[in-house]
């Protein structure tokens, strides 16, 4: 049983393309070779696989033709189409047909391999010549070996700069031949070597998650340690880390030490070069940093009047003023007010222009260096949190308040300008802001009064609760209609309603609400404006009015107690419906009865809109 090696040699593939190829290779192998690979090769200059124990021939194929009873009409045509005589057709399960014998593997491989090369689907692909092939980068060679026989191509190629063409003796000998030519074709092995090298140095970190990319940036990993000059330690730490990780794909160790994974070269030369590049970048950042410091955070804050937040939404200075007002309304103290004043100052800094991903953090560092207390600087740093659906929340109270105020302002301002997100278009990140706001209330325990949110914004934000809470949406909708005063209370109400949904008290309230709502809800226009006790005639309706006056339904209090109290109305309601004809002939009496039912519904409705909940 032979082994098949396939290697597709490409110009340097991006890491993302390598990962896509890694996912697709097994499926392509199964689809076009009919077997699963025993080993994958994925890296910047080659992707491929090894398949062991392939059958020498492809399987025979049964081609079904016309049913036997149409032999006279259709058999000749079918036979002709397949180049056989009618007598040669076989009969199987009532159908005529032919068996197409399997072919020798080496005969079918070239076309199947071509299908594999053309079968990849990359998120970003290109063309480079007239072949019509699309790939993530140009394909420069293809090599296929069936054991020691070369089926497609001629040779492989070793490390770009130390080895040229490499003869591959056999499919099974591929890996060793490449290793001898300074190439590690197995991604997992490269990763292992990198981690081993980093561990040997010790203390390395990868806060930006660059390892996955670095594995596909090298064919022959060599881990080297470098050190930059102490004087750069004056820079904010994350500026250094971002420079190392995002720009250079280095791994920070501690203080001035860092690790580089190189693709070859002489270690002494390579590390000297990398160190020089890193220092030049840090020098550049230092230059910007010192200019900002010379300006100072308070002066930076004053520049905000000339920087536009977004068109129609005024300047960052105006935004800061709006945020400060919201901070007050959210009950923020002195630290959060001071933080609000300085929160956007770094938008006027040069360092944020260079490191936009560090907005907030850079402002916090500048505030710290200017001597502002921790409460203020932490809040500035945390103002954009949470910045993803699962991301961490601010840890400090001023941070939570500022983060909520910032999101609220962005939402209200954008909505006022008509930038409501539609479909997948959400250029101002309003969904993320709304989810952040809700999480600050739910997980952060921040009280965000519903009155603070303009109507449309309130609806948009509360709709997020439907996907964030672990209860059926109907309960969230019911709770949103309750008199719960803040976002957290709405969420708790939804959870409580769901929890209590099978208790007798819930049942009683639910039924009372439903009956009142069903009868009177549609006749709202006919109802009297106010209940007139003098118009109550029947005992049962007098009893209901009395009971309604005595039940204590605190829409904001303990739901269980409120439900039990509300449930007392259930028997009185039942009697009412048994004994009283609501749709009385007398207009005034009818209007009064409708009002009584609506009052019952609204009293219970403080607990939630029960009509949302299906039974």
């Amino acid at each position: 049983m032979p082994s098949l090696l396939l290697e597709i040699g490409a110009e340097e593939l991006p890491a993302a393309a390598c990962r896509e190829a890694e996912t697709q290779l097994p499926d392509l192998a199964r689809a076009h070779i009919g077997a699963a690979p025993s080993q994958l090769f994925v890296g910047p200059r080659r992707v491929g696989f090894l398949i062991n124990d392939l059958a020498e021939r492809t399987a025979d194929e049964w081609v079904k033709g016309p049913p036997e009873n149409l032999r006279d009409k259709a058999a000749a045509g079918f036979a002709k189409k397949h180049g056989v005589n009618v007598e040669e057709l076989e009969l199987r399960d009532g159908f005529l047909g032919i068996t197409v014998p399997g072919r020798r593997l080496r005969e079918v491989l070239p076309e199947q391999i071509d299908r594999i090369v053309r079968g990849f689907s990359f998120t970003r692909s290109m063309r480079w010549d007239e072949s019509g092939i699309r790939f993530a980068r140009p394909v420069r060679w293809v090599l296929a070996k069936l054991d020691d026989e070369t089926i497609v191509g001629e040779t492989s190629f070793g490390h770009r700069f130390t080895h040229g063409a490499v003869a591959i003796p056999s499919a099974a000998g591929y890996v060793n031949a490449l290793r001898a030519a300074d190439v590690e074709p197995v991604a997992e092995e490269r990763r292992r070597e990198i981690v081993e090298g980093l561990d040997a140095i010790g203390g390395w970190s990868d806060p930006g998650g660059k390892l996955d990319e670095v594995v596909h940036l090298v064919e022959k990993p060599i881990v080297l340690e470098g050190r930059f000059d102490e004087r750069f330690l004056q820079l904010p730490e994350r500026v250094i880390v971002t420079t190392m990780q995002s720009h250079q794909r280095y791994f920070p160790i501690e203080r001035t030490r860092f690790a580089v994974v190189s693709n070859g070269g002489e270690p002494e030369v390579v590390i000297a070069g990398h160190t020089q590049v890193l220092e030049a970048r840090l020098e550049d950042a230092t230059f910007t940093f010192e200019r900002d410091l010379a300006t100072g955070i308070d002066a930076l804050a004053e520049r905000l009047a000339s920087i536009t937040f977004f068109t129609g939404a005024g300047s960052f200075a105006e935004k800061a003023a709006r945020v400060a007002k919201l901070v007050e309304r959210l009950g923020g103290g002195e630290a959060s007010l001071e933080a609000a004043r300085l929160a956007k100052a770094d938008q006027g800094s040069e360092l944020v222009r260079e490191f936009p991903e560090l907005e907030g953090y850079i402002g916090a560092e500048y505030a710290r260096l200017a001597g502002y207390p921790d409460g203020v600087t932490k809040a500035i740093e945390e103002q954009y949190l949470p910045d993803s659906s699962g991301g961490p929340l601010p840890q400090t109270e001023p941070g939570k308040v500022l983060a909520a105020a910032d999101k609220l302002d962005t939402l209200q301002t954008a909505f006022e300008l008509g930038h409501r997100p539609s479909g997948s278009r959400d250029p101002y990140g309003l969904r993320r802001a709304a989810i952040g706001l809700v999480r600050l209330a739910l997980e952060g325990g921040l009280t965000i009064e519903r009155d603070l949110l303009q109507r449309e914004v309130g609806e948009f934000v509360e709709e997020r609760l439907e996907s964030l809470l672990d209860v059926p949406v109907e309960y969230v909708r019911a709770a949103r209609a309750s008199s719960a005063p803040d976002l957290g209370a709405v969420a708790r109400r939804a959870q409580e309603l769901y929890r209590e949904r099978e208790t007798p008290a819930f049942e009683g309230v639910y039924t009372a609400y439903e009956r009142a709502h069903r009868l009177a809800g549609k006749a709202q226009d006919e109802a009297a404006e106010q209940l007139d006790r003098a118009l109550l005639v029947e005992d049962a309706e007098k009893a209901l009015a009395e009971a309604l006056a005595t039940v204590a339904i605190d829409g904001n209090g303990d739901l269980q107690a409120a439900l039990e109290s509300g449930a007392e109305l259930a028997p009185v309601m039942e009697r009412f419906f048994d004994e009283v004809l609501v749709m009385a002939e007398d207009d005034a009496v009818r209007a009064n009865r409708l009002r009584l039912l609506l009052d019952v519904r609204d009293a219970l409705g403080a607990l939630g809109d029960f009509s949302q909940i299906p039974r």
Partner: protein
Amino acid sequence: MTSEVVEAAARSIDATAEEQATRSHCEASLRKCDTPEAVNYQEMIIALERYWADYGCVLAQPYHTELAAGTMNPNTFLRSLGPKPWNVAYVEPVIRPLDGRYGENPFRFQHYFQYQVVLKPAPEDVLDLYWASLEALGIDLRKHDMRLVEDDWEQPTLGAWGLGWEVWCDGMEITQWTYFQQLGGFDVELVPAEMTYGLERLAMFLQGKRTAFELEWAPGVTWGEVYREAEREWSRYNFEEAPVEVLTRRFQEHEAECRHLLEVGLPIPAYDQVLKCSHTFNLLDARGALSVTERAAYIGRVRRLARGVAEAYLEAQGENAVAAA
């Protein structure tokens, strides 16, 4: 500009004795292991010219109006369209008003140089040709950590994009490498390879210098001596003096002229007006005169012009314009 800022700048440029010691150590170690002797800036350019002329490129010259990238030179942008093969190489001064730092920051300039090579169609061994050009500069590829790091290129004002890399030499980006896929909104017919060498960075690497100002341009003359004063003055112009109202008007005039030239069938002169629009936009941007939405609108206007030029250029060549993507 406060005096403190200037002092801070001076401090970072005027390194202490200790730093200089580290620096010369670095230089020594680079020189020791690397090129036999560091070539100066002009010799480096001459070496590249020689190499690409020998390959068969037309050695073109810089364009006569401000460009933000060598790609915008019609020798790249227009010639990359259509079915005619074209190999060209040239030095291009690039003008990026927003990047000026008054000659104070030794790493940022509003005016610097690219060496641009376009091979259309890209030959199969195009990467090998590129690596050999580095060897022609004296770089021993086996001693260094050479890498191609994904960097897809997009120029919204030209409706252009391509896939490619940054070329890293021991972590320094020395070349921007692109296979064009679309220009002016049109799919390219023959895929060109574009290699844009960053001459300052390449020279910093070759000469083992930490900043562009220190580069030796010619024997005894530094890059800083040639251009530093110009950086100072142009930065003042770009950030402080460029007349916003005049520029706004000029943009409209260039735009109208471009349209007119397209109507009368002169795509090549019309393209100059696109370039002038683009530079005028960059100046307005540097003056902080544009809000985010205004920026987007201006970019859209330049893109429409570039698209019109690409279309007219293809037509003028008597070719069937490929369907717009």
